[in-house]
Every structure is written in structure tokens, then in C-alpha cells.
């Protein structure tokens, strides 16, 4: 009988399920489970064989299943303001309700928090640690107001990594295996490279990738970066996309890619398919976002200084000049026609520089863009009508520009 190879999508589903199941099993047998932020030095946990789940992933999944509201309301009932990040509101609600149609995660015994995405996670995770009375490891990654990561920051972060290793040794009651760390770091870098290479295939015209798939694979790069299965998955996905690109296939079977845009910010999970459909209706393919680079964490295996620098280099921990250069380069690499900026009510760091980023990117590249109001998981902060109007405006601008021969 002919062996049918599993598609990367099928593998993805299977791996994700296993990822959560393993954490639940570990908890059931009295093992240690960590909750970690999405771009944290998971290498340390993997080395120590500590199971980890990612509340941002879980909150996104709850959002995508249109289940967020009840958790959000629960948190608001406890006194959490509507102003704070909705991932936090979903997760802090889940922490008490502990039952979701989008799948369950075990409660943590350890908090693993890295501030390279925002200061908000420090507050959010502090609350979890406090409510559950469990230890918290914080990797404080100083905001890079200079273009690059400074030597002082690097040293500070490296020393925090060393400190964390000591804490983990004490918690697990076993020695940290540096050879194993080197192995995990190697796999993690390779996975990151493979992820980046796959997402870069969307530079082809037409793009073999529709960016909403990107959002799905994102969940996997968050939780599988340090694992061989993760590496295999991204290699498989990359192979599929290469094949599509070779055949000149675009993102859709039933429509042509007419315009190529970037999406700035997180998806609106509760409206994932609505936002997607509106774009598709106008032949607009979201080919990329600012995200692929977030998990392209590349360093020299075994070198904690280079690891420190890599984790701090995440674009949301970088200054505005870097942010602008970054998007301008994406415009060029992906031959973009436009940019959709999500003014995400949850994410203040992304918001309060967005207007300026938009102006500067437009001045530099000439590519038109629009901003719409939304939220990653709070369904109440998004209006489909407004979104569609903005997309129409963008479409008009992109058409004029194309017809103008640019």
C-alpha cells in the first residue's frame, strides 16, 4: 500500500493536541508545569524537561473559538479594567474557570516571564504568581531605545539567564545539563531558520501562502521551537510552499492574488474568518506581518551572551527607527501594495507609536496604508463595518497607485 504523507496542517493539529495533552498528563502525575510568555528562553525549560504552556496561545485559541467573552467578563467581575490587554483578561479568567471549549491547560507551578514583548506581561504574570502562590522567573529585557542591543543590556540579561538556571535547578532538584542546552539551542535556531525560510516564500508572486495560515503556524513556532518535531513540521511546511511556488500557485484555488499587503499587529482572533474574507473578496492577500521575525531567534548554540542579545532583539523591544526600517524592508522584500495596521486596543506599546510608524513608512516607501480599530481577543472592540470601509479605502488607493504605473 502506498504511504500517504501527512500534510503539514494535519501534523500541526496533531502536535498541538499532543502539546496540551502532555502538559495535562505531567500535571496529573504531579510534575512541574510552567506558563511562559510567547518569546521567552524556552531552551532552559526544555533542557530541564519542564512542560510548558503558553497563555497567549491559549487565549488566542479561545478567541478564535469565539469563547473569549465569558472569560473576559469573569475577569472584569474581579475588578480587571477593560483597558488592560485582553489576553490577560482571558487568561486570568481561565485561571479561575478552568474549562474551555477551545481546550484546557493545566494550572502552572512556575511562571516564566520575559519582558521583550511588553511590560504588561510583567504585571499580568505577577498577578498569576501572586494568586496561585507560585514562584516567578522574570527575564527583564531593557527596552532598546538605541538601535541595537547594548553590551550592558546583554550582560544584564545573560546574568538573569544564569540566575534562572540556578532557580530551575533548585526547583527540579537536579543539575542543569549544559550539553543538553547546547543541543536544544541548536534545534531552536534551526527551527527558527526553517520558520523564517518558509514565511519568506511568500515573497513569490503570487504568494503560495495566505497570511492567515501564517497565524495558525504561529501557534506552533511559539510552542515547538525547541523540539525536533517542530523543526520537522516547519521543514515539511516549507517543502509544501516551495512546491506551490514552483508550480506558480497562488494563495487560493478559486481566486487570484491581486494585491499584496502586510498586516501590522496581532490578528483579531474572534473575527479571523471575517477579516480574511473581506480581504479575499477584494483579491487582497495578506502575505506577511511583522511576526515572522519575532520567532527568528538566532544565536550561537551554547553561548548565553548571544542568546541574551537575540532575545532582546525582538522588534517590539526595539526603537522606532528600527520599527520603521523593519517594515520598509518588508515592503520591499514582499513587493507589497499596501499595509493594514491593526490599532489593537489591547497592546499599548504597538499602538502609541503606530501613527508615526505609518507616516514614516509611507514617506519612505510610498505604499498606502490604513489603520482600523480592533482588539486581538475582545470581540466588543471591533466593528466589521468599519474594517470593511478601511479595506475598501485601501483597495482604492492601491488601485490608483497601480494604475498610475507605480
Amino acid at each position, binding site marked *: 500500500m502506498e504511504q500517504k504523507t501527512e500534510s503539514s496542517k494535519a501534523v500541526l493539529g496533531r502536535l498541538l493536541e499532543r502539546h496540551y495533552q502532555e502538559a495535562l498528563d505531567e500535571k496529573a502525575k504531579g510534575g512541574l508545569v510552567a506558563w511562559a510568555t510567547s518569546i521567552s528562553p524556552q531552551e532552559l525549560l526544555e533542557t530541564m524537561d519542564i512542560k510548558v504552556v503558553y497563555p497567549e496561545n491559549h487565549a488566542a485559541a479561545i478567541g478564535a473559538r469565539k469563547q473569549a467573552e465569558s472569560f473576559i467578563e469573569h475577569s472584569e467581575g474581579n475588578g*480587571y479594567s477593560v483597558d488592560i*490587554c485582553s489576553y490577560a483578561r482571558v487568561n486570568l479568567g481561565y485561571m479561575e474557570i478552568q474549562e474551555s471549549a477551545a481546550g484546557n491547560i493545566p494550572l502552572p507551578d512556575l511562571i516564566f516571564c520575559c519582558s521583550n514583548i511588553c511590560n504588561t506581561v510583567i504585571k499580568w504574570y505577577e*498577578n498569576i504568581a501572586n494568586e496561585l502562590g507560585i514562584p516567578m522567573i*522574570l527575564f527583564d529585557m531593557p527596552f532598546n531605545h538605541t538601535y541595537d542591543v547594548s553590551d550592558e543590556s546583554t550582560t*544584564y540579561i545573560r*546574568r538573569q539567564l544564569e540566575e534562572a538556571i540556578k532557580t530551575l535547578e533548585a526547583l527540579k532538584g537536579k543539575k542543569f545539563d549544559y550539553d543538553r542546552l547546547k543541543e536544544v539551542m541548536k534545534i531552536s535556531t534551526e527551527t527558527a531558520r526553517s520558520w523564517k525560510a518558509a514565511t519568506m516564500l511568500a515573497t513569490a508572486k503570487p504568494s503560495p501562502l495566505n497570511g492567515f495560515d501564517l497565524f495558525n503556524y504561529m501557534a506552533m513556532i511559539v510552542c515547538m521551537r525547541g523540539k525536533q518535531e517542530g523543526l520537522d513540521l516547519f521543514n515539511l511546511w516549507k517543502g509544501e510552499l516551495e512546491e506551490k511556488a514552483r508550480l506558480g500557485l497562488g494563495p487560493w484555488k478559486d481566486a487570484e492574488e491581486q494585491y499584496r499587503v502586510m498586516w501590522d499587529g496581532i490578528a483579531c482572533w474572534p473575527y479571523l474568518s471575517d477579516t480574511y474574507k473581506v480581504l479575499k473578496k477584494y483579491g487582497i492577500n495578506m502575505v506577511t506581518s511583522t511576526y515572522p521575525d519575532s520567532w527568528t531567534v538566532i544565536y550561537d548554540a551554547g553561548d548565553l551572551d548571544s542568546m541574551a542579545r537575540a532575545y532582546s532583539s525582538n522588534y517590539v523591544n526595539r526603537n522606532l527607527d528600527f520599527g520603521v526600517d523593519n517594515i520598509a524592508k518588508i515592503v520591499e522584500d514582499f513587493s507589497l501594495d499596501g499595509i493594514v495596521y491593526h490599532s489593537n486596543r489591547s497592546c499599548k506599546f504597538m499602538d*502609541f507609536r503606530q501613527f*508615526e510608524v505609518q507616516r514614516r513608512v509611507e514617506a519612505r516607501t510610498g505604499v498606502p496604508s490604513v489603520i482600523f480599530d480592533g482588539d486581538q481577543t475582545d470581540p466588543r472592540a471591533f466593528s466589521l463595518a468599519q474594517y470593511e470601509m478601511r479595506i475598501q479605502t485601501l483597495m482604492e488607493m492601491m488601485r490608483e497607485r497601480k494604475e498610475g504605473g507605480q
Partner: protein
Amino acid sequence: MIIDELAGIAHDPRKSVDEHIARTGKKAIGCFPVYSPEELVYAAGMLPVGMWGGQTDISKATQYLQSFCCSIMKANLENGLNGVYDALSMAIIPTFCDTLKCMGEVWKTAVPKPECFTFVFPQNRKLEAGVDFMRSELERLRARLEGISGAKIGDGDIERAIAVYDEYRAAARDFVKTSPSYPLTVNARVRHNVLKAAFFMDKAEYAAKLRAATAELKALPPEDGGSRGVVLTGLLAEPDGFLDLFADSRLHVAADDLVQESKQFRVDAPKEGASPLDRLARRLSDMDGCSLLYDSARTRGQKILGMVKDTGAAGVVVCMMKFCDPEEFDYPIYKKELEKAGVPLLYLEIEQKMDSAEQLRTRIQTFAEMLGA
């Protein structure tokens, strides 16, 4: 009385700062919320000036900030764009929250004068690695200040500045301990403005005046207006119209847990240290119970309870700065602790420019009545 003079300064900070510059020939350096290494600015022979927003109408700032940004930062940016801070030689912008991180970046682009200096406070401030990082940030600032003044800042200068600041902090602590005995003279508004004046004066001069003001108070017989004391918690409690509602409802401030007030002077620099910068860095390690400083032990609720107990306050009023997410994250945790201890709690949302302060009148009145004021 001297307290009236001090309160007057908070109402016209510009005048006080301009006069100081004219009188001393010193340069002035702006210090954004919530904490700045003011001692270093002082040691450089310059005047640190607090930049805590104001009741500004917002228009130009909307080019940079969405509506759901806190009112302090909107006001600071608007003022910056309008050249209100022209007299300052530099503005120090720390990175305590996501909004502040953006502010530093936006400032660099949008506001030509004063130039901005982003100061990164470590959050792992209790680890030696954090103390060392803080020291390196202080060194960086020291070099920049030396560039502005053209003169070296010696270790002796910093030691002297720390001494001045510790004296100011002691004077402020004595004032807030004394003031609840004079609820009529030092009502909520007066108390706030007296403390706020510190941001616009030379700290040695301020401390001397404040000590004299406290002595003046102590010479008076204690007042008993039948008013009940409350503890205020939050980022800050403004504007005046809001604070007046307290006196109107026969409430006064027994103690505060506000970032703009007591949290500025609760903790002194440690007496010993390898160097004066080391002492400044370690002061940060010792500051607990603040929403802007990593504290997985979350001591804030216990601290508030301690204040209630020590001062015999009848309740706690949360002055929640709208859109300030660090403060919003703390609230559910200490709320639980206060409720468990049976402490009456009133939650109020405020903005710096509040046309609607009056709307809070009934809520404050009802709370006061419940407390038996």
C-alpha cells in the same frame, strides 16, 4: 502660612522654575513620571523639574496617541509640541510602562526641545545583575549631564545630593505624619499641592520650607472638624476640583499610597554602598509596593493595610488614573486583600483634566456618610 506659599508654587510651576533659573543661572532638567534619578541631576548643579502632565487641552498630541492613552502622557506630549518646556535643557523619560516606552520614542521624533534622555530602570532590581545595570544607566546619565553642564560630577557632589534628598524625604514624611491632625488647614487639596511643590523647587530650599511649615502646624492646637481620615492609593490624585470633594464631604487624607506623593519619599538611600551611584541603584532595590516596580510578592495590599492600621483611617479611596494599565493590574489583588480585612473601599476613575469631577461628588459623599463623617 508657609503651606499656602508652597501650595501656590504647585499652581504656577512655570513661575517657580523660571525664577529659579534666573536667580541661580542653573539649567533645568525635566523628569518624567514616575521616578527619575533626580539626585544625579541635582549633583550636576541643575534643577530637576517634575513633568506630571497638567490640565491641558489635547489637540496636536492626537497625531501621535490614540484616545486610550493616559491623560498625563497626552498632556506632556501636547505641552512638548507647544513648546511649553522650552526652558528645560533635557527631559529624562524612563521606561516603566509600555506607554512611557513609546513616549520616549515619540518625543525623539516630535519634540525638538528639550531633547530626551531615555533612562531604563531595571525591573529585576533586587538581583545584583539589576543593580549593576542600574549603575551603568546612572553612569550613562552622568556623562550626558556632564556634557550639558561642561563640568565633571564628582562622587562628593553625588553624596551631597543624596544627603539633600534624604533630608527632603525625611521632611516630607514628617509633614504627612503631622498633617492629619490638621484636617481643616491641611485639607486634601492643600496637602497635595504642598507635596507637589517639591517637583518645581530646589530640594534643599523645599525641605527647609516644608520643615518650617510643619513646625508652624505643630504649634497650632490639633483640629477636630469631625472629619474622617482616608488612605488614598493610585498614581496620583488630581485635579483640585476632585480633591475639594473630599473636604466638602468631611474627609481628609490620613495617609497616601500614591506614586506621585509618598512613594517618592518613602524610602531613603541606603546609608552604605560601594559608591554613591551604588547607593542610588540600591535605593531602587528597596522600593516596594509600587505598580511600576516588579514585585512578585505584591506587598502593596499589606502596605495599605498597614497604613490604615497605623493612622486609624476609616477607609481607602482608589484614585484610578484612567488608561494606566500598571495601576489597573494591581487593583484586583489589593482589593481582595482589603475586602478580606473588612476595610471600606471606594473606587474612582480620574483623569487629569476632569470636567466631570462633580459627578463623583455623590459617590464620595455617600462613602463619607458610610464612614460616619
